[in-house]
């Protein structure tokens, strides 16, 4: 049982780190702030959440499982809020979307 939990945690921590790396590459390479927010808020939160889940799986302790699940829930709640605030502030300050954007309903 503990052996299986360790293999599962190894898989989860690798996948989480891979998602974080993909999110970072997206933040570097996507063309404007609004598309970069997609990479940072979605892939980034999945990456960090999977690493938190790996801690929950490997510990096999009720208190630690509860705390790391609480951490994941907090990340899932807070990251969309901060991404929305940042996008709203950038739009209000006149940040231009990339040329590939075809529809802008707020203009």
């Amino acid at each position: 049982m503990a052996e299986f939990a360790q293999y599962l945690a190894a898989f989860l921590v690798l996948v989480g780190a891979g998602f974080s790396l993909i999110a970072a590459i997206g933040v570097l390479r996507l063309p404007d702030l609004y598309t970069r927010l997609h990479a940072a808020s979605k892939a980034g939160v999945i990456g960090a959440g999977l690493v938190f889940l790996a801690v929950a799986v490997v510990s096999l302790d009720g208190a630690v499982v509860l705390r790391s699940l609480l951490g994941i829930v907090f990340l899932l709640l807070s990251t969309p809020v901060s991404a929305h605030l940042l996008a709203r502030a950038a739009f209000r300050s006149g940040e231009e979307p990339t040329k590939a954007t075809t529809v802008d309903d707020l203009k």
Partner: protein
Amino acid sequence: MSGAMALQWAGLAALGLLLIAMFVTVIRLVRGPNLGDRILALDMISLLAAAFIAGIAVVTGFSLYIDIAIALALVSFLSTVALARYLLARASRRSRTEEAP
């Protein structure tokens, strides 16, 4: 390969991947054309740091590190909200001074 050894190597590899991700994000932080990009990069770096601390909890087996990771995630959310509010306030102040004269 036993489970503990697989976990060790996977944890170390994950820490390396997270370190590379942090460097990539620092490039965006330095290069980022506007203030919004830099706030986004700072938010991303602190999220990666929280994931890194959770990875240290996996590698060393000290599950106490998860508390530090949660606290860092909390503080990074607050700092991102504060910086976004600053950006918003600066934008509204600028539009008011353009309308006033």
